[in-house]
């Protein structure tokens, strides 16, 4: 996983609440067996009409937001299906940061596994950011994970919170499987004591 320390990029506002992962990456694109190549299908049903033509009104298609790498959105972003294809699509499209008042749990977790930083900010602060983008006061943001601070270089600054361990892993791009594998001894001794009735034998079942 790519480490995340500091990132500056253009902000794309997506003024919708409860954006579910079915919208982020519709199911017809879940059939790939690779992790890559999902960016072209990001928000597919919103970006393209039935004939595959881009909808000029949709934020991601607007020229002023082209090349954006920070997504600003509303509460409960990423709800619904656990599909990790959602962060894969965001990342592949170019997003490194998503800012919202709240996220759904599984999506939030999946982001950290892929080097995307999801940032929770109070609803009021998110409102302010939407307004500043509207008036073009804010165009880009710098997100500093070391300092846990966001600023637009134009008068807007705010601190954010992130669980210290998640921050540590992201800053260092750590492979958490390797970390768990270091616990081999504990895993092994736990396994010695698993109740018999949870074992699954070869000859069992149908």
């Amino acid at each position: 996983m790519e480490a995340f320390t500091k990132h500056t990029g253009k902000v794309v506002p997506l003024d919708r609440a409860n954006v579910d992962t079915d919208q982020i990456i519709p199911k017809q694109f879940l059939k790939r067996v690779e992790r890559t190549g999902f960016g072209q299908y990001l928000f597919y049903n919103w970006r393209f009409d039935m004939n595959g033509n881009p909808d000029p009104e949709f934020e991601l298609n607007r020229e002023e937001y082209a090349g954006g790498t920070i997504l600003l959105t509303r509460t409960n972003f990423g709800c619904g299906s656990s599909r990790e294809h959602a962060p894969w699509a965001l990342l592949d499209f170019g997003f490194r940061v998503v800012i919202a008042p709240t996220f759904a749990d599984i999506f939030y977790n999946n982001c950290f596994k892929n080097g995307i930083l999801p940032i929770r900010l109070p609803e009021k602060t998110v409102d302010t950011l939407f307004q500043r983008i509207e008036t073009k006061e804010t165009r880009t943001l710098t997100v500093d994970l070391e300092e846990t601070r966001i600023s637009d270089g134009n008068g807007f600054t705010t601190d954010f919170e992130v669980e210290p361990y998640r921050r540590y892993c992201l800053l260092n791009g750590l492979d958490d499987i390797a970390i768990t594998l270091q616990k081999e001894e504990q895993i092994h001794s736990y396994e010695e004591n698993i109740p018999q009735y949870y074992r699954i034998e070869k000859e069992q079942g149908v």
Partner: protein
Amino acid sequence: MKPRTLFEKVWDRHVIDQEKGKPAILYIDLHLIHEVTSPQAFEGLRLNGRKVRRPDLTVATMDHNVPTANRNLPVTDGTSAKQMDTLAQNCRDFGIRLYDLHDPGQGIVHVIGPELGLTLPGKTIVCGDSHTSTHGAFGSLAFGIGTSEVEHVLATQCLQQLKPDTMEVHVKGSLPPGVTAKDVILALIAKIGTDGATGTVIEYTGEAIRNMSMEERMTVCNMSIEAGARAGMVAPDETTFRYLEGRPFAPKGEAFERAKEDWLELRTDEGAVYDRRVELDASQIAPQVTWGTSPGMGTAVTGRVPDPESFPTETEKKSAKRALEYMGLTPGTPMTEIPLDRVFIGSCTNARLEDLRAAARVVKGRKVNPRVRAMVVPGSQQVKRQAENEGLDRVFLDAGFEWRESGCSMCLAMNDDTLKEGERCASTSNRNFEGRQGRGGRTHLVSPMMAAAAAIEGHFVDLRNWNPED
């Protein structure tokens, strides 16, 4: 010892390591996998030269992509076929038990886990699928994970997890006739919202839950994720044990008795505190129907399509407006006057034997409205066989329903079963998101009995006082 909740007991039993300021390392007793969210995890293992630590505790099925028409024909969709082949290959390579397309044990992962007796009280169960919460009905801690975590569990049989909060959902009283477990969970989500339980594990308690069958408890736990919860749980009791005894993977004889004693300890201690608490009165719940594009956008069947202006916040107003546009609905329309094109009885929420029995009781001797195309997709091959043994297939076929092979089908429409643009469907599944059942398709979530009655009438009816003409 400090009194603990059911969740805390199961959690504590599985923590193998907990360093301060770090997530716990949690042992996983059962890992279920399917064709859509596993290929990249196996690819990751190969890239890093890692093995599957416990192939014996890993069980695979094919469900999301599978065709529900004739199983003897080859799978026509090339990319779906490739995903299924990839799963089969991975299972062969790593020695994992697979219930494939032609296996009599095949079915939706959350239907077969319990029916095979793989799902047992007190286990930790994960799957790359958010509705893994279903298995919590047995007093297991079961939750959905992403593909990176699937890889993590394959490699280590563990997960790093921050401890979630707890929430008690207490459902008192008893359900009126015509009102089902599905209505309880839809009513809960309408009340607390789709993020009402975010960051928590729900425990369902109260008389109404105690009186539910295992299948009903599964329906409730299944949709916990739609309230934002990581998992839903019900403490095991005699109902649980009766369901489990004799299942293929459940312990047998004396071992079962010993297990039972252990499982009886899995209940919330007197005096234990939950971080949050909500109460519902079962006797006040009416049959539910959703009107919008999020499971929380629902109302009683006696209600009307709401006016977006009636919502308190700007964001909610906007969401409701967008939803009504997508759904093609006008504020003020009575829910019972919304005409339907399709009816889908299926999914891991409501495609178990009891669900099909309940729907068949409504359908028996009646005919599907000629305007409606209706289908039943059993949750598993076993459910299908049992239903056929009872003659339920005849009841549905005689009424004009299609009777299909098992799979996820039109719950997420990854196979050929989809809505066309603008088609309106009464569905027993769990998500009414935009395009979930097909791009431009409109989904109303309901119980199996509500769906069955809607198929007959061509619109929703209040089951509690429904008197079909014929």
